[in-house]
């Protein structure tokens, strides 16, 4: 074990790992967060706490991580490079570790033009690969960017995201390799709807020996409505939803669409489970966190009772 991360421990154990996303509220209301957190408790190995996702202002990921940790969760701190420069990012890595966070997911973040602060400056001092390398170097060499030694280097389990569906296609796995070399202990993918493209991606990753060096968690997002499917397919950056899935949702009566969406998610989980190199799933049930147990049960993945410490 490289760290004290419970996610690392779960991955090491060889079981099929489950992480889920938990978006902080648009404000300081801790009740909402605690409610969401409670519905996931006992069902996941770790929770991803998003960092002002789609450039919408929300409670800070770090604060929400700390609250979820107190609740008994193993939080994964998501960090985007869009809003903070290297001084702030590194300082937050120190702070996160000091508060008991043991996992970080390094991201660039959606462009600020998507969110509710379109006039903001986009920082992008670092990119996601550089942040990844930074967190890795802190752990392995005890240094910050520039090489200066630090007091009490954070021992974080470091992850990155990858989108097998973005373009240029052949480049995606090259980028994955780059992230693995920069120190990615785990990878969480973009939501998978196009299974054949994901399979190709996994074969390429396996052939390059990447699945042995990093744990790949397959991203799954249940569709709620046909409208959501169409919206995601056309408006959300980097999404690939095959036409037949959209029509499957559209051909389902409105009141049954949510159920159908869950069915699709369950089928997806069952399929990715069989793909060699997939270490687990990452469930992004956006504003639908309470459905996670049902999906996991239906997919036959089972629950994850909290460890007795």
């Amino acid at each position, binding site marked *: 074990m490289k760290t004290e991360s419970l996610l690392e421990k779960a991955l090491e154990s060889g079981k099929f790992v489950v992480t889920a996303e938990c978006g902080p509220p648009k404000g300081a209301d801790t009740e909402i967060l605690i409610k969401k957190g409670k519905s996931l408790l006992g069902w996941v190995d770790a929770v991803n706490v998003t960092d002002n996702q789609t450039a919408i202002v929300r409670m800070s990921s770090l604060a929400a991580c700390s609250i979820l940790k107190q609740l008994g969760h193993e939080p994964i701190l998501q960090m985007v490079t869009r809003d903070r420069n290297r001084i702030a990012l590194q300082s937050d890595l120190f702070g996160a570790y000091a508060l008991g966070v043991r996992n970080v997911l390094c991201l660039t973040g959606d462009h600020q033009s998507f969110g509710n602060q379109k006039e903001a400056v986009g920082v*992008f*001092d*670092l990119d996601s690969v*550089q942040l990844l390398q930074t967190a890795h170097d802190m752990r392995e060499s005890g240094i910050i960017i520039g090489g200066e030694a630090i007091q009490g280097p954070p021992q974080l389990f470091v992850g990155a995201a*990858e*989108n097998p569906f973005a373009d*240029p296609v052949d*480049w995606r796995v090259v980028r994955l390799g780059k992230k693995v070399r920069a120190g990615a202990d785990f990878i969480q993918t973009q939501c998978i709807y196009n299974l054949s493209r994901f399979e190709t991606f996994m074969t390429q990753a396996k052939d390059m020996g990447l699945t042995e060096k990093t744990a790949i968690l397959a991203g799954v997002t249940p569709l709620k409505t046909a409208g959501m499917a169409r919206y995601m397919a056309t408006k959300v950056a980097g999404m690939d939803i095959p036409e037949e899935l959209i029509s499957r949702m559209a051909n389902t009566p409105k009141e049954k669409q949510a159920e159908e969406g869950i069915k699709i998610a369950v089928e997806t989980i069952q399929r990715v489970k069989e793909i060699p190199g997939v270490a687990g799933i990452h469930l992004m049930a956006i504003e639908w966190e309470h459905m996670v147990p049902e999906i996991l049960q239906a997919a036959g993945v089972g629950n994850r009772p909290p460890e007795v410490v």
Partner: protein
Amino acid sequence: MIVAELKEIDEIRKMIDRYSSILVVGCDSCVAECAAGGARETQLLAAALRLSYLKDGQKRIISEACLDRQCVDDFIDGIAEQVPEHEVILSLGCGAGVQALARVYTDKPIIPALDTLFIGETQMRGVWTENCLGCGQCKLGYFGAVCPVARCSKKLMNGPCGGSKGGRCEIDPETPCGWDLIIRRLEAIGELDRLGEYVPPVNWSTSHSGGPRRVIREDQKQ
């Protein structure tokens, strides 16, 4: 070159309405190339302002002039005689031109008529695109002469983000993805291998982050 666009006449008028005599000064370099502030545009703007004041029944003295380069002292002297006869200079230079006039004509208000946008190229007639942010440490040699700083919306150094789709940037389907261009270019010249290497954090201190920059060349001083 520097690419700029003419402001709306209403915005210009808000800034100049308080003056009774206006010297409209163009610049026949970059901003002429992008059809924003050259001799022709200067004439057009002066005419539009005259008409606009006439319509409102207001009197203004409006004269015009155009310098070859508004950002070079030797040329700025070209309007020295007209300047004292006017209350204000309305400049169709880029931001550098406006400020150079202000440095030379210390007692005159100088008002910008253009929005200065970027360092770019004339891609075809009527199309100008941004391709350099003046980062002070040109990295084009590593990226197939396509700039990741200026042409990627997130200034990414280690490859495209997950939003790149069909050669387009996630921010807008009209914007080409800079990284898609980089990869295609490197592929075309057989240098894709350049992208496997990790690119460390950029040293932004040579860019504007290091404060306003200047270049001093002793060999050029006389």
